[in-house]
Each structure stands twice: as structure tokens, then as C-alpha cells.
């Protein structure tokens, strides 16, 4: 497509972030900084054991400690609240309460909560609570948990397999029968998590006179689902006001995370004073409900001798931990782009969602599809190795081509647009791929182990909620997952945008919203004010997550701007005695096309709208210049009843090529980066510097998952990585400098052609780094099929490979 990109003034500019002035002086307004008059503090007592019946709880000593207002246990929680919201299959069989009631199901599960005049006293009181546990057998290995006779995490379920089903998309049998080669592997993606530096926190206030519950919190993006929170708190849905506070990082982990605000709310109602509860780091590590995917794969990839990829057979066991709050939505996400950027014709997907005595999973940047990217890319590399084809060539050969979009993959999801060969060529050029291969050859001659990993993968954006329910046969209907904005031009002509979700968690919502408003009205973005509205007076919003926010809020702004501008044009048209179609918005004014001196400033129009409505034409129905707009998912379709086609549910698909160059020390298992290149296609770019920041930050997190981070549980179910001395987050010494390139293939279906881009870094890096390490160790024939890749594992793999060589 050789169409000219429309000229834009603000979208695409590197403007400084509007968020930064307050962040740089330490005044972001985090919930932990909030103090309300009369506020008291909560702490929780965590279970020290992974699986045990709660026989008795003696809180008498804790209750008599000076400064303690209340101690709440699981039995009282059953009196005070309803079960927690749960989107999993058949929640009545694995009911999730705010605190453990009959038994504890993982080490760290909250058993009691204390409210006291300060946090120190609350924690003192936790230490005085005496809980009698009757130990139960522990199950931590998901494959063991699937076996008959395994200890049951939830007896009512009768099994630890919360969900299992095999889906077939396309003619898998035929494609495998006709294949020249089938490559197989067993892959393990261990559990890591978002670990934002700010934990989840909330301050709740309850007014018994009005029945109004106000909760300030840094989690819960879905305002249209807050009735579920109200239900758990046993208050009417119109008596809950959730006020979003800027979050000190989330990466998915705060997009729901309702337990903290619900706990604060329950306690505030109970003690009649505002209550603050902020997780400490151990709470966040052990019981945040937001550990990432934890998967065991057996995969077969069918290919032809010329490198054509035909079909994928995937069997996956996912260890969800003790509860399953989002069902298997993370696998819905996987199915959105399960064939990667390739023309793979059929897919079999066999899923076992297993419960064990561990913390439950939640959302983490990628929501499951980062794992599938890694699996598919690892398998494509294996096929390349088996067939003796260069890893770049096999990708190039199988790419969906630019003229084939919109492209429907076997699962039914659509890829809107793309230019995968273009991205690949850009990345190869930026990295100097030929030069790198030459350098690698020379390094090998010198006895050094240098590897080059090249991967190409997808970043789906803007989810439709079908991914949460197409697993089940009952038809539900398509949830729009809308995003809303209120735009107001005041009597002085100044514009305020109000956002309704938990929109700030480290990306740049205010900057981006200001850029879009500036584009729509032709004003300077620094003049736009962006605020966050509470839910009680708010509009439906879904917030960041699934790389959706920029697209969705841009659509909402366009809609609201259109309403305001229509009204302004009517006013200006009457005053200037010119037809509306002859007017244009430019430089903070409405002016006559071709006669720019004939104009009205925004202030002049706005003053009329607010103060002199009765002088205006009768088609102006009311005073003011304010518009709400709720933007619904622009493109999603229903799954077929037989689920052989899941419909379109994640259609705006970005793409990236990452190239990692790594040297491995085969004596110590240590590695170092020689180069890292990332080329992304996120459609139209709104703010290049901010996008680059998202990419590099995502690379750092991907690197953590790939090399360093893991929630390690021992056979007793104890979390061994309960501090940052053991759970290793990459520092500035580990994260390489990332060289970034962009390709812009606008989406034909989204506002301005934007595609989501918040998760891409983390969705690409694991595959690129593993490929580079495997390539570095190619002289040994090492296969990298597990993350994290620790030095010990590298040495073990080398030893194994040497033993194999000796044996043969």
C-alpha cells in the first residue's frame, strides 16, 4: 500500500511526558502517600504452611494489645463478606474467600487481618495470633497433582484439574500425515511475576450514614465490573466509589488485584474508621494473586523438507496454584497468536489447568501469549536445526505476506495488517547480521562461544473478553470491554480530559491523551489537563491491559471531540455567518477556510456556550461544552458454537524482530550481551520515546524471566524466593543496551492506525535470548528448552551434551 500517511502535528512527536514533573519531585499521589483523618492501619497474618486444616485461631492476646481495633479471621470473613469475584470454571467448587476459612492452600495465604492505630502495632498483633494447623499432604508438582490419589487442593472439585479440553483448528491429522519432518520437544516455562516496585495498596472509608464506601486504590482497572467488588463487600453497587491512584508500576499485576481494596473496605466498615492496607514486599511476593504463567509443554511441529511449516500440536499443563481467578484466559490469549507470524495451517491445543499448593496466577505483561511466542519460536529454531536451514531463512519462507492481510489464523483470530519481511530486513540491517555471523565464526576460532538469536513474533492488542469464556460451551455474548472519556472545554476555552480507569501505572496516559486531544483540536498538548475520575460518577472503563489503552482511549477522545466540535461549529457558524463545512479548527480557534483572519477563538465560542446559551440558535440544546464518549471494541466476532473457530478476539497485531548476540563462558555458565536489537511495528506511533521506553523496559523484564527470576517452591510448598536477595530482578549491569528500530504499518481498523505496544518487549526477549544461548552452545549440541536459564543449567546442559557425545 503506497498511500501517503496523513499529516499530523502532535501524534508521532517526542513531547516530554506530562506525568514527569510531579514524579521527579516525589509527589505522584500514590495510595501509600494518602492520609485521611482518623485513618488506621491493617496488616495480615500469612500462613506459614502450604496445606493444612485450620483447627483453631486464638486471637485473644492480639485483641488485647493496646492500639488494636480489630482482628478478623476467616470465619468472620464469611459473616462479613461474600466470596471473592472469580471468573474461573465453576467457582462454587473452588471458592475463594478474602481470608482462608476452613484450610490454608498455600504458604502465604492470608489467615487473619488486624487493624491497629499504626502498622507497627498491627504487625505486633499478627505475631500474637495463635493458629493451630493440622497439616495436610502438600502437592506442588502439577504433573503429580493430576494423578488420581493426589492430595486435593479443593475437595469439592474432586480433582486438581480445574479445566481440561482439546481444541482442534484446521486439519491437523492431514498436515501431520503429509509432513516430511516432525520435530518434538518438552519445554518448561517456570513461574515469574511482575513485581512492580510499588506493591498493591488501598485506603478505604465507609460512611454509615449514607452507606457509601469510598476506596482509593492502585489496582482494579475494570470499572464496569466493580459491581462484583460491591457484591463481595455486601454493599449495593451504587454505594461504591473506587478512586484510582497512580500506580508505581503494574505490568498487569494490578489490573484486577481486588483482594487488597476489598480487605481495606471490609475493615473500614467494621471499625468505622478509614483503613489503609498496603502489601509489604513479602505479601506481594507470596500472596499477590498475580504470579505469571507456569507451564509444561509437549509440542510437535510438522514441516516439509523445504522448510514450509504445516501444523502445531501443543499439549500444555499450566500450574495455576491454589485458585483460578481468571479461568484459563491466559490460554485464550495464547490462541490469539498461536501460529506466530507464520502461515501454519492447523493447530491442536490440549490444555490442562491444574491446581497446586502455590500462590494463584494473575496477569503479567503478555498474559500467557509471551509464553506461546517463546514456545513457537523455540520450535521453529528446532525445525531449522533439524532441516539444516538458517533460522532467518525459515522465518522469511513462512511469513504471512504484506498483501495477505487481513489474515485469519486457524483459531479464527484475525491479524489486521503487517509487514513481517520488512521488519526482519530492518532488524538484520540494524544488527549487521552478516557481519555478526562473521564475527561469530572468528570468535569460535578463538575458542569463544558467541551466539546469535533472531526471532520474529507477534504482539496482539485490544482483547475482547471472549478469550475468557470461549473455553466453555455456554454462549455468553461479546463483552465490549469499553473505554470512556469525558472531554470538557471550559468557559475560558481550556480543555480537560477525564479518564475513568486505573489508567496510570507507569506508561504515559496523560501525555498520550494530551497528544490526541491536541491533534483533534489543534492546540498545544501542554495546555491539556488530564484527570482521573472515580467510579461512582464515572463511565465504563477497562483500563490498560492487553496493550489496549492507547487505541481505546484515542477512540473515546475522537468520539467526544467530535461531539464538542460539532457544537462549537454550530455556534461559530451562526456568529461568523458561514456554513459549518467552511470552518476549520486551527491554532486554538475556529476560522474560515481560506480567510484565516475571519475567526473565533475557542474562548469566544466557549464563553457563548456557557454564559449565553439563550442567544444561541435553537439547535444548541443546552449550555456548556462537555461530552462523554464510550468507545467499544472496534472489531470482534462470536466464536462458532462448536469452537472450531474462536472468532476474532485480539485483532490489532503488532510484530517485532529481536536479535540477541550473547557470549557464554562455558566454564562458569555466565553470559554477557554483545548486542541487542529490537525492531517493532506498532502501527502508528504516538510518542516514539515513550514507546522505546516501553520496549526496553519489556526487554528487561523478559530478560528477568529468561535468566534470573523464578518463584521457587520446595517440596513442602515453601516459597524459597521470598526476598529480592533470592528473587533476582535484573539491574543496570544485566540489562543490555537496546538498539531500536521502528516500522509503521497502520492498522486499518483503529483510530489513527495505532496498534498496542505495551507488552512487546517482554513477549519477544525470552525467545531471542534462548536462541542466542543455544546458538552459542551449538558446538556442544545443547538445546535450550527451559527458563530461567541459570548458569547452573547451562553447565548441566553442557555436561549432558558432552556425555551424549562420549556415548555416541
Amino acid at each position, binding site marked *: 500500500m503506497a498511500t501517503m500517511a496523513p499529516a499530523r502535528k502532535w501524534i508521532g512527536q517526542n513531547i*516530554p*511526558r506530562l*506525568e*514527569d*514533573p*510531579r*514524579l*521527579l*519531585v*516525589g*509527589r*505522584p499521589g*500514590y495510595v*501509600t*502517600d494518602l492520609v485521611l483523618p482518623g485513618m488506621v492501619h491493617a496488616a495480615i497474618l500469612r500462613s506459614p504452611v502450604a496445606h493444612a486444616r485450620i483447627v483453631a485461631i486464638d486471637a485473644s492476646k492480639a485483641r488485647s494489645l493496646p492500639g488494636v481495633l480489630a482482628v478478623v479471621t476467616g470465619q468472620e470473613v464469611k459473616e462479613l463478606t461474600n466470596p471473592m469475584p472469580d471468573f474461573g470454571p465453576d467457582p462454587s467448587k473452588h471458592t475463594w474467600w478474602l481470608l482462608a476459612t476452613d484450610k490454608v492452600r498455600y504458604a502465604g495465604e492470608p489467615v487473619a487481618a488486624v487493624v491497629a492505630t499504626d502498622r*507497627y502495632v498491627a504487625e505486633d498483633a499478627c505475631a500474637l495470633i495463635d493458629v493451630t494447623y493440622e497439616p495436610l499432604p502438600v502437592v506442588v508438582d502439577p504433573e503429580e497433582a493430576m494423578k488420581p490419589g493426589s492430595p486435593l487442593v479443593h475437595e469439592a472439585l474432586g480433582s486438581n484439574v480445574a479445566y481440561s479440553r482439546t481444541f482442534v483448528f484446521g486439519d491437523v491429522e492431514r498436515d501431520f500425515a503429509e509432513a516430511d519432518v516432525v520435530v518434538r520437544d518438552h519445554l518448561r516455562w517456570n513461574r515469574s511475576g*511482575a*513485581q*512492580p*516496585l*510499588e506493591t498493591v495498596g488501598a485506603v478505604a472509608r465507609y460512611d454509615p450514614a449514607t452507606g457509601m464506601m469510598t476506596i482509593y486504590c492502585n489496582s482494579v482497572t475494570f470499572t464496569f465490573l466493580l459491581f462484583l467488588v460491591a457484591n463481595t463487600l455486601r454493599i449495593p453497587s451504587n454505594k461504591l466509589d473506587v478512586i484510582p491512584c*497512580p*500506580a*508505581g*508500576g*503494574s*505490568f498487569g499485576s494490578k489490573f484486577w488485584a481486588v483482594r487488597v481494596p476489598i480487605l481495606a473496605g471490609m475493615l473500614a466498615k467494621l471499625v468505622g474508621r478509614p483503613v489503609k492496607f498496603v502489601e*509489604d*514486599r513479602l505479601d506481594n511476593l507470596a500472596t499477590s494473586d498475580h504470579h505469571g504463567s507456569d507451564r509444561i509443554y509437549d509440542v510437535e511441529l510438522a514441516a516439509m523438507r523445504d522448510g514450509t511449516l504445516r501444523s502445531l500440536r501443543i499439549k500444555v499443563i499450566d500450574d495455576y496454584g491454589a485458585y483460578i481467578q481468571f479461568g484459563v484466559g491466559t490460554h485464550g490469549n495464547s490462541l490469539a497468536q498461536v501460529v506466530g507470524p507464520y502461515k501454519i495451517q492447523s493447530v491442536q491445543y490440549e490444555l490442562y489447568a491444574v491446581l497446586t499448593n502455590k500462590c494463584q496466577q494473575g496477569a503479567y505483561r503478555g498474559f500467557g501469549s509471551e509464553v506461546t511466542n517463546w514456545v513457537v519460536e523455540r520450535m521453529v529454531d528446532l525445525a531449522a536445526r533439524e532441516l539444516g536451514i538458517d533460522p532467518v531463512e525459515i522465518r522469511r519462507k513462512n511469513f504471512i505476506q504484506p498483501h495477505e492481510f487481513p489474515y485469519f489464523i486457524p483459531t479464527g483470530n484475525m491479524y489486521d495488517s503487517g509487514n513481517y519481511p520488512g521488519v526482519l530486513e530492518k532488524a538484520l540491517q540494524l544488527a549487521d547480521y552478516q557481519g555478526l555471523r562473521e564475527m561469530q565464526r572468528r570468535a569460535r576460532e578463538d575458542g569463544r562461544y558467541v551466539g546469535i538469536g533472531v526471532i520474529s513474533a507477534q504482539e496482539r492488542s485490544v482483547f475482547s473478553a471472549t478469550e475468557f469464556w470461549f473455553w466453555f460451551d455456554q454462549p455468553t455474548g461479546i463483552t465490549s470491554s469499553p473505554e470512556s472519556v469525558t472531554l470538557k472545554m471550559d468557559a475560558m476555552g481550556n480543555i480537560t480530559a477525564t479518564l475513568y480507569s486505573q489508567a*496510570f*501505572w*507507569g*506508561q*504515559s496516559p496523560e501525555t498520550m491523551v494530551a497528544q490526541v486531544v491536541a491533534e483533534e483540536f489543534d492546540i498545544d498538548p501542554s495546555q491539556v489537563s488530564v484527570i482521573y475520575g472515580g467510579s461512582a460518577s464515572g463511565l465504563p472503563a477497562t483500563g490498560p491491559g492487553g496493550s489496549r489503552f492507547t487505541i481505546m482511549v484515542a477512540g473515546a477522545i475522537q468520539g467526544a471531540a467530535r461531539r464538542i466540535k460539532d457544537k462549537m461549529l454550530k455556534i461559530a457558524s451562526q456568529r461568523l455567518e458561514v456554513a459549518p463545512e467552511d470552518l476549520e479548527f486551527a491554532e486554538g480557534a475556529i476560522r474560515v477556510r481560506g480567510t484565516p483572519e475571519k475567526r473565533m477563538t475557542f474562548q469566544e465560542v466557549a464563553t457563548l456556550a456557557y454564559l449565553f446559551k439563550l442567544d444561541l440558535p435553537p439547535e444548541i440544546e443546552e449550555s456548556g461544552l462537555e461530552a462523554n464518549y464510550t468507545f467499544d471494541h472496534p472489531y470482534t466476532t462470536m466464536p462458532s458454537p462448536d469452537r472450531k473457530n474462536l472468532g476474532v478476539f485480539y485483532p490489532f497485531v503488532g510484530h517485532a524482530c529481536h536479535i540477541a548476540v550473547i557470549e557464554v563462558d562455558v566454564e562458569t555458565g555466565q553470559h554477557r550481551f554483545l548486542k541487542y536489537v529490537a525492531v517493532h511495528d506498532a502501527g502508528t506511533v504516538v510518542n516514539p*520515546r*515513550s514507546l*522505546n*521506553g516501553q520496549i*526496553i*523496559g*519489556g*526487554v*528487561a*523484564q523478559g530478560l528477568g524471566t529468561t535468566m534470573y527470576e523464578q518463584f521457587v517452591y520446595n517440596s513442602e510448598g515453601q516459597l524459597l524466593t521470598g*526476598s*529480592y*536477595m533470592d528473587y533476582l*530482578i535484573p*539491574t*543496570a*549491569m544485566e*540489562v543490555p*543496551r*537496546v538498539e531500536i528500530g521502528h516500522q509503521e504499518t497502520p492498522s486499518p481498523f483503529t483510530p489513527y492506525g495505532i496498534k498496542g505496544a505495551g507488552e512487546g*518487549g517482554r513477549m519477544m526477549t525470552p525467545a531471542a535470548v534462548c536462541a542466542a544461548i543455544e546458538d552459542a552452545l551449538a558446538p556442544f549440541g545443547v538445546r535450550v528448552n527451559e527458563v530461567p536459564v541459570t548458569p547452573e543449567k547451562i553447565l548441566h546442559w553442557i555436561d549432558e551434551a558432552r556425555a551424549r557425545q562420549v556415548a555416541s
Partner: protein
Amino acid sequence: MADRHAINVTVNGVRYEATVESRLLLADFLRDQLGLVGTHLGCEHGVCGACTVILDGRTVRSCLVFAVQADGADIMTVEGLSRDGQLHPLQEAFRDKQGVQCGFCTPGMLLCAYEFLQEHPQPSEEAIREAIAGNLCRCTGYQFIVEAIQEAAARMAVASR
């Protein structure tokens, strides 16, 4: 509680007298008693560096220092970096290079860089990376922070000429 101590501290040039429990962390004292909430608590076990403040000229982790230990000390927090509403050149550089995303590590990172640049006015990229390796950032991947510190060094060198 009998176990209380009178302390005198100077924070960002302001003198304070207070009575604190011996177990009160300096971070909690700064945040809860003085209202200086720019000092953030990320891990409360001395690894993440978000709570870094400068105490008598050296960076410390205020989650590993008791308020009583700061008796008589001169402390600078992030609130002391900007003067009269003017951002410090380090803060300016962090803004221009987008060395900030969520802002939670930022105060600690700024104070770490502040101390480092005083001793190393012309640092290499490698030296900067090593200097900030004790401060975790979960958002940026550090690259723009490194660029911001390099930029700040250049601006401060010009300013001091």
C-alpha cells in the same frame, strides 16, 4: 512504650525535633512524621534502593536505618533536590531523556546519581551502570536513566564552568 528517644535531625535544611520509638525506621519517620513521602519503600529489606536518602553526605537505605540512628544528622531527600520550584539539572535530564516511567524508583535513583556525579563528574556509561546497580527499576530497563545521568553530567559540567 517506654522505649522512646528524643532526636534532632536536619532534613533538606529544616531542623526537626521529634520523639521516636527505637524501632521506627528512618523511612517511616520521614514519610509518616515529616510528611516527606517522596522517599518510597519498595522492598523494606535493603535491596531495591527506592528509599535511598543522603545522610551526612552519603547515600543510605532509609529502610535499613533507624530514626534514632539519624540523631544529629543532616539528611537530604528527593524533596531537597529542587530549589524554589526549579528542578535540579538531574531532574531536568531525567525528564528530557524520559528516565522516568512510574516514578517509584525515581527519588532513590536521583539521589544515587547525585552522590555519584559529585565524585565522578565525567562518568562513562559502564561506570554509571555500575553506580546505579544497587537501585532497581522495573519499568525503564535503565537505558534512559543512564542517558539522563550522562546528560546531567554534561549540563552540570557546563554550569560549574
